[in-house]
Every structure is written in structure tokens, then in C-alpha cells.
């Protein structure tokens, strides 16, 4: 326990040092260039505090986060269902594999634009567009999980007639959890980036919209402030939600 704490502290110290060096490098680079093109950490920090006090920072991040969450849950649910089905049924996989490859390689921008054209400039269109971008990735990851399910345990479940729901909950889902975690990790990073594009193109609030407006005004300080704030939020989700959850899921491992 003590050893683990020490290890964690060293880890934290290294992270702090690394970030400090990055900020230092940024400061040096900024001092050599036009402050309009590359504002220093102080300037960006001031913009951040200003936006925070005014409230617009939190509203916009909140709105973006809500969109990330909605499209993320939608994509995980549908993608998981498709992935398990493809992983378990060979014929289904043979038929739908080309579709999956098509959707995997469809540029995000194309999906977003088409959704806006077909569904109008609505919230539903925005969330659908992001989800469609993410579903194929989730499906491909979970398909691997579906293929790797332990046959012995499935046989046990069927010999003891524990029913579909219990089989899913106690036998299948726990085996999929590493794949699920993988999909969540890569998904979170991908989804929030696409949400910004969706907001830039067809919404009138959220981080993407603010960055779009800042681009028109050549306001680099606001762009950096919002980007950093959002990266921090995503990092918090990783640290305080995903990692504890993963530890809980893995407590049975030796």
C-alpha cells in the first residue's frame, strides 16, 4: 500500500514536471511571436478566467458535454449490439462486413453534412451524425469480443438453463468489458472532436460554435482557452469515472 502510494506520487511528480516544461516552451515561443497569432499562457489563462466569470465557458462546455454524452451512449448501445451479433453469427458477419468497412471509411464531414441536409439543422441531426461516425468503431471492437467469448461458459449457462438475460448479464457482458473499455476510451476521444465539427457547421452554441466565431475574429486566445478547458474536462472523466470503474470491473483478477 505504502509502496503504491509512493509510486503514484512519483508518477504525479513526473506529470507535473512534464506539463511545466510544456508551458515553459509555450511561453518562450510566445515571447518570440506576434501575441495575436500565439498568445502566451498568461493571456490564455486570463481569457479562460474571464469566460469562466462571465459564465459562457461553463454553459458552452456543458452543452457540448451533453451532446458528447447523448451521441456516445447512442453509439455504444447500437454499436455493441451490432458488434456482438456480428461476432456470434458468421453469416451475418459475412454479409455486413462490407457495410462496416464502408461506414468505417466514410469521412466524418460527409456524414455530418448529409445528416444536416436530410434531417435539417436540428439537435437530433447533430447527435445522429456523431453517433453514425462512432458506431462502426464500436461494432468492430465488440465484434472481436463477441468472437472471443468462452464456449465452455456459454455451455455451462445453457446446461443450467439460466435464461437469456442472466447469460447476457453474468456470462457475456463481463467477458466483453475489456473490449467495452477500449471502445469507450477511443470513443470518447473521437466523439468530442466530431461534436466540435458538428457544432461548428450547424449549431449556435457549444465549444465548436465558440471556436468557429473566434476563428472569424482571429481570436486565438479564446480558441486555445476553450480547447484547453475541454481537454481538462475529458481528462477528468478519464481519471474520476473511467479509471475507478475499470478498477472495480477488474477486482476479480488475480
Amino acid at each position, binding site marked *: 500500500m505504502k509502496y503504491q502510494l509512493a509510486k503514484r506520487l512519483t508518477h504525479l511528480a513526473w506529470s507535473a514536471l512534464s506539463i511545466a516544461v510544456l508551458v515553459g516552451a509555450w511561453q518562450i515561443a510566445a515571447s518570440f511571436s506576434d501575441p495575436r497569432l500565439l498568445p502566451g499562457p498568461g493571456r490564455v489563462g486570463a481569457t479562460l478566467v474571464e469566460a469562466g466569470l462571465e459564465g459562457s465557458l461553463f454553459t458552452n462546455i456543458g452543452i457540448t458535454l451533453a451532446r458528447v454524452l447523448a451521441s456516445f451512449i447512442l453509439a455504444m448501445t447500437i454499436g455493441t449490439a451490432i458488434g456482438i451479433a456480428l461476432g456470434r453469427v458468421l453469416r451475418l458477419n459475412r454479409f455486413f462486413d462490407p457495410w462496416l468497412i464502408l461506414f468505417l471509411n466514410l469521412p466524418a464531414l460527409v456524414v455530418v453534412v448529409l445528416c444536416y441536409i436530410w434531417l435539417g439543422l436540428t439537435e437530433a441531426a447533430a447527435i445522429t451524425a456523431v453517433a453514425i461516425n462512432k458506431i462502426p468503431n464500436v461494432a468492430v471492437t465488440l465484434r472481436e469480443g463477441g468472437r472471443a467469448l468462452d464456449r465452455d461458459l456459454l*455451455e455451462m449457462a445453457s446446461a443450467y438453463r439460466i435464461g437469456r438475460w442472466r447469460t447476457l448479464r453474468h456470462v457475456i457482458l463481463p467477458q466483453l468489458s475489456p473490449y467495452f473499455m477500449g471502445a469507450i476510451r477511443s470513443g470518447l476521444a473521437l466523439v468530442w472532436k466530431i461534436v466540435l465539427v458538428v457544432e461548428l457547421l450547424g449549431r449556435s452554441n457549444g465549444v465548436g460554435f465558440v471556436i468557429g466565431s473566434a476563428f472569424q475574429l482571429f481570436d486565438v486566445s479564446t480558441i486555445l482557452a476553450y480547447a484547453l478547458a475541454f481537454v481538462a474536462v475529458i481528462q477528468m472523466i478519464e481519471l474520476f469515472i473511467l479509471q475507478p470503474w475499470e478498477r472495480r470491473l477488474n477486482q*476479480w483478477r488475480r
Partner: protein
Amino acid sequence: MAAMTGLKIEIDCKSYPPLGGAPMRRIFEGFHLSVDPGAFVCLLGQSGIGKTTLLNMISGLDTDYSGRIEFHGEPKPRMGYVFQTPRLLPWRTVLENILLPLPSTESARETALDLLAGMGISDTQDVYPERLSLGMQRRVALARAFAIGPDVLLMDEPFTSLDESTADRLRDLLIAMLAQRPATVLFVTHDSRDAIRMAERILVLSGSPAHAVKDVSVGMNLDERLDKGAVEAFRGRFLAQ
């Protein structure tokens, strides 16, 4: 006590399709077996002869055969299956594993706890199976099979890969549990000691397709079975037959 369940097995044909250049394998053809209610029958035979396949057909896991398997007394009997490996869910505790096939009621929970206590493994109830020794895991698998109150108990070499003394303790445990909770038992093994220690009837399977080459009733009482000499003597006669 509920009426015991007997079995009538008539396999017309069971075969495995040719795989990777190997020819089609005919496992059973015209195989007939009747098991009396409450009997303890050992199926003895070499590996790969189709013993596990037979259990899988009885349990309903394998339906790809022609023939009939009928149950008397209880048309849809509850079947406990103890596999060759424990097949416990590593991400569920011992108690959760035993509760898995049971309805989620308080009385089911009590049944499970009583069973663990009766087997002397109450202290493991909150432990994850992979932290237990193989012998312990096999006990838990046995507890899971008994927890459902089985009419028929299918056992597929449940005591392999254990040292002889652990295996012996498990054999005694099984006999004691069956005395309290009678069931019709089909016990598959390649170890004639297993068979003679526990079975009332031993069926030796051989050949391809498999058929019974010997059908022996053991007729030893409990004390004789505990006597190593008596078991070995019977084994000598049995093997010489």
C-alpha cells in the same frame, strides 16, 4: 421425496462430420442404455470414445443426433452438470456462482449457504474462484450442481487433475451428499478406481462406434468401498473379466 427419474437412451446415430482431412467419425450407432431411477452409473472408457458427447446429448447441449432420450418419473428433470473443468465464472464470487442457476429469492440464498456450510467451504463464499485451489473450485462446481436440487446429475470426470488424497476426499463428499439428496447419477470417467469406489453399475464403453463391452453391477456396501483392499481386489477381478 419426489419420485426419482430414470433414463432411457436410444441413439440411432451420432457422428461428427469430417474435419481437416480426418474421415467422418461415427460415435454411436444403435446405442441403447436404460438407467434405473436413483442409480449411480459409471461410464468407463478411453478418452475420445464419446462419453462426453453422450452427456451433452442427455443434457440437451447437443441436439444434433438421431434417436430419443426419455426421462421417466420427471418428464423435464432438473439436471446438474459437473464438467471436466470447473467452469465457474471468474468474475463472480463463489456464492454468486452457486446462485447463478437459482431463482433470486431469499430461500434460494439459504439453500446455497446451507450447501456451502454442509460441504465445509463457507469461508470461501465471498472469494473469487481463481484464488482457490483446483480442488476447492471442483467443490464449488459440485455445490452448484447440487444447489438446483437435481433429479439427474451428469458428471464428466469431475475429479481429474487432483492429487489422489484430494480426489478421494471429493469422492467421499459426493457419496455423502448423494445420501442426503438422492439423484440419478451418470458419472463419466476413465479411472476404474473412481468407478468402483462409487458406482452401483459400471458400463465399459469401447470401439467406434462405441458400444458397451461390459455391464457390471458392483454390489459392494459403503464400508467395503472405503476399504482400499476390497476396492483393489474388485478392480483386479473386474479388469481380469
